[in-house]
């Protein structure tokens, strides 16, 4: 089943290119089918545990292996969910000419993401990284404004640089240990200079792609200027894709190398990212930029969790995945709402939001609910993630980190409430407004509700995530 997650979007993307007349219906049908495929992969996983697909029947090291476990499954599910929702939103959002190219690019992007989350091969990771990098740069440029083009260009250069650094690491690992398969490498890797250099290069490349402070400079312009559905997927999934590779690599390859300094390194950068991103989000005057800087801060949390997990605090893995999921849902809701407001007013200046709360109540509700999860208020998905994170930091006696987490929450509350406050006020000058189609309001609301609901279903979700013991936690049932 899992291979259809790659083949189907490719097929759908080709069809939307060949028969542009029906691109929207083909696109949405493909996305919904992908979503149902994820469900069947999930049932296969739950029935038989984690499993491999040996492509071409060769098996590593000669061939490429695909692998499904709890971690890849939740990422696949997240991808399908956000792609479908944002796709439905996009069906109303784009002009005819834009949607001509949006649909095939979108579906190929989904194929690339699915391929990435299934892969077990470090060179194959490189190909999928390039696939999603080019597709997201092209999608960013779709709005065809000066800012979007610059953002897309900067993003493209950054992502190419990141891929090349990563590929150099692949070259070193291949020649050092004779394979590109993660499982085989994990058996052969030892603490020699070539492993260290590969770790440095691959991590640097991926950190650049995941926009960890201070390598986040490219993110706000690109994410803020892209079309709304594209911003949503950029923040929700594209960033996470490189973090996912980082997870896989560290868990199976680099963890055996001594990593104490790297724990401190990631914790420091993560903490800076949380504070810096939140403060900058607080001072922004444009909504989309505010949301983009909030992503910088949230990436910081992910790396704080990562550093604690590397230190052997296993609850931090749950925190990491939960933060990824809830941030992805909440952030796509925020970006889609921002897209609505941009469409409604023709601008996204925060001070001129002009009584949105009365005029677009659904969008405002979506924004508020997503905000609850971003801040980490109780019972939301973000709350569960932060709760685990606090628990991990206390277990580790890292008071500094505890402090940063709390401070970050306060700052997040600051920027979310700042926006919400202006949804009630009246603008100085009356503005012309445009109608928003209902589906464009319902999709972000749906995402926001999902982000909250994640908090209620923490136990089954965590059981699902840990299926097949993706984090190699000692003592866990495999």
């Amino acid at each position, binding site marked *: 089943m899992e*291979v259809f997650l790659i*083949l189907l979007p*490719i*097929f759908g993307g*080709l069809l939307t*290119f*060949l028969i542009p007349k029906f691109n929207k219906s083909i696109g949405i049908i493909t996305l919904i089918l992908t979503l149902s495929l994820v469900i069947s992969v999930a049932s296969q996983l739950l029935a038989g545990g984690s499993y491999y*697909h*040996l*492509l*071409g*029947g*060769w098996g590593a*090291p*000669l*061939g*490429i292996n695909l692998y499904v476990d709890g971690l890849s499954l939740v990422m696949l599910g997240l991808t399908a969910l956000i792609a479908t929702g944002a796709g439905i939103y996009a069906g109303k959002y784009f002009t005819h000419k*834009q949607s*001509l*190219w*949006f649909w*095939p*690019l979108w579906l*190929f992007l989904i*194929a*690339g993401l699915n*391929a990435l989350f299934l892969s077990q091969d470090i*060179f*194959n990771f490189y*190909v*999928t990284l*390039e*696939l999603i990098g*080019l*597709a997201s*740069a*092209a999608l960013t*440029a*779709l709005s*065809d404004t000066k800012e979007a083009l610059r953002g897309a260009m900067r993003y493209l250069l950054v992502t190419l640089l990141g891929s090349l650094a990563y590929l*150099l690491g692949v070259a*070193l690992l*291949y*020649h*050092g*240990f*004779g*394979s590109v398969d993660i499982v085989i490498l994990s058996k052969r890797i030892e603490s*020699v*200079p*070539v492993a*260290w*250099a590969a770790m*440095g290069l691959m991590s640097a490349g991926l950190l650049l792609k995941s926009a960890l402070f201070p390598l986040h400079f490219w993110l706000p312009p690109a994410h803020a200027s892209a079309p709304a559905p594209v911003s949503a997927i950029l923040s929700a999934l594209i960033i996470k894709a490189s973090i996912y590779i980082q997870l896989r690599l560290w868990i199976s390859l680099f963890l055996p190398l001594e990593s104490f300094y790297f724990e401190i390194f990631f914790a420091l950068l993560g903490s800076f990212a949380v504070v810096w991103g939140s403060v900058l989000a607080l001072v922004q005057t444009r909504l989309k930029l505010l949301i983009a800087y909030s992503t910088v801060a949230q990436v910081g949390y992910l790396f704080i969790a990562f550093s604690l997990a590397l230190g052997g605090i296993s609850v931090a893995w749950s925190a990491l995945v939960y933060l990824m999921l809830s941030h992805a849902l909440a952030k796509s809701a925020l970006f889609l709402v921002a897209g609505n407001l941009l469409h409604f007013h023709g601008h996204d200046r925060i001070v001129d939001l002009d009584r949105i709360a009365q005029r677009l109540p659904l969008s405002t509700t979506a924004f508020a609910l997503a905000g609850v999860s971003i801040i980490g208020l109780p019972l939301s998905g973000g709350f569960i993630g932060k709760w685990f994170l606090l628990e991990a930091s206390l277990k580790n006696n890292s008071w500094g980190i505890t402090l940063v987490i709390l401070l970050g929450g306060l700052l997040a509350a600051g920027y979310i409430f700042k926006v919400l406050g202006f949804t009630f006020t009246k603008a100085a000058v009356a503005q012309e407004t445009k109608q928003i189609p209902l589906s464009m309001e319902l999709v972000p609301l749906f995402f926001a509700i999902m982000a909250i609901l994640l908090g209620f279903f923490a136990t089954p979700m965590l059981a699902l995530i840990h299926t097949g013991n993706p984090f190699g936690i000692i003592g866990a049932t495999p």
Partner: protein
Amino acid sequence: MIIRIFTFILTLLLFAGLTYTVLSLPKQTKGLGETVSLQMHNSGVSNPVTAVLMNFRAYDTLLEMGVLFIALLGVYSLSTSQKEKKPLLQSSVLKRLGGILVPLLLLLSAYLLWIGAHAPGGAFQAGSIVSATGILIFLSGWKLDLSARHFFVRLLIGTSLLVFLLISAVTLFLSHTLLEFPPSYASAFIFLLEAAATVSIGVTLFHLFLSIFSQPKEEH
């Protein structure tokens, strides 16, 4: 100026570190050369590079065709359609030269495609020759309407991915394993994939050139 010095020192350190790494590596490292040669008789071709590209790691090639396709989509999405594309060079000499060169080049690419199974060559080399031929035809001023408005042209661009999907479906049907070629049919499958890839690579690269070449000089 500070940034310049900082960057310089950083690159220098990187260079030093990587040089040390490379020199620390044992002289003869273990690659996959032996593993590949042990399986060559099952691969359907005798050129090991083609075997890796089109059989052992054919999945990579599938995704790579996706990358090429995406680049073209991205380029298209920013191109404004223009009615008339003026060729760069209008000369009868070039036209006549093209008349001789074009068939020769196409012959060469067919040869490269065919020889790729046994010797250096294959879809990528052949496809890029096809696109070079296209560029030559275009530059020498021959009228040639290959715009993506036509379904047929879009089909040519998508051929490789379509054939990949078709063969994926066949292999999944045969053995429930993606792109597992039965040894007796492997060479036929690989040839089909290569031929389709040649066409798609040729047309796609040519279109990339055409789109850049015919970008408007000012905004509309």
